[in-house]
């Protein structure tokens, strides 16, 4: 019986490391969000949790701060044309974006 690979279960996400790595990345991204936005608890957030438009603290200035904190935490550099509102649609889309940067730095 063929195992379903992670890339099939996470439709739309880039293939990006083991299940453990993805879990850890999701936790780190949640932590960055929670700390930057001064939210009491992001423990219950999942990859499907909606961000932009649903989290009132996430306005355009907060987006800048979140990007900065993720760049510094993960040691990545984000270019202008890589960011759109879609990047911040859910915790999962944001996490996938970071994973992409970590695995394909330029």
């Amino acid at each position, binding site marked *: 019986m063929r195992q379903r690979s992670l890339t099939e279960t996470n439709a739309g996400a880039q293939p990006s490391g083991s299940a453990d790595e993805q879990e850890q990345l999701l936790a780190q991204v949640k932590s960055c969000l929670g*700390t930057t936005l*001064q939210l009491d608890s992001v423990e219950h957030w999942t990859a499907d949790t909606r961000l932009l438009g649903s989290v009132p603290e996430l306005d355009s*200035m907060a987006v800048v701060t979140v990007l900065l904190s993720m760049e510094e935490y993960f040691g990545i550099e984000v270019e*202008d*044309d890589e*960011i759109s509102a879609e990047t911040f649609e859910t915790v999962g889309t944001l996490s996938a974006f970071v994973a992409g940067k970590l695995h394909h730095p330029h």
Partner: protein
Amino acid sequence: MKAQQRFLLHDSRRLLLTGFGLGTASRAVIIVPPFAEELNKSRRMLALQGRALGAVGVPCCYLDLSGTGDSDGEFSEARCSRWIDELSALLHCLRSDYGVETVDLLGLRFGAIVANELARDAALPIGRLVFWQPVTNGRQYLKQFLRTRVMAGVISGSGGRESVTELRTALATTGALEVAGYRLGDELACEIEALELRDLPAVPAIHWIEVHGGAEPALSPASRRFVQGLPVSVETRAVQGEPFWSTVEIGLAPALIEATTQILGGVE
């Protein structure tokens, strides 16, 4: 403990000096401030740290550098090179007016890079360096600063999206640019871009402290890699707290004050 305040005169500019316990010991700490809005958001923490050190008998002070706070000068005319001169002048003032023989530097965010530049002058009596959440790359930091102007358009979806690259070109062409309430001059931008946290001096000790949320704070992956790559030994630690230099509501990191007071407050 009450803050001591006076003006320091340097190069015809009056610079506001805030001190705690100056004159009570021959070793003092100079806090080197962060940049622009990060300084505004950090003011409470700076005062708390100053007070905490003063309370354990370690004089501590910081300067409103030219073009910032209550000191003379326009932000649009500010220069890193001038800021370093001003800090050097502060050091000399501490020696002549307050009997200070050795100075430890506490650099916060971009202030860590500035503190490092100052410490590299071997002629100055610098003891220990402490970096709070240091910025390590001026080029990327400037991009992040310019990005504050770009993002409003991106997220609101309003047409006409400026890019950081376009902004940087506009800045070079016109000489100054309004960014999130700050009038940034091209000369200052060029200086920031050229600076990095590198060539750390051979001072007695260098400490690197980061602030993280969550129950088990640990150095970020990026910081771990950076420190591992350094040719000098740096003591690192992570404490729990809010990233107060960037939070919307005034943030605090009491654990950071505690750790720093322990390091600079006596024999480590």
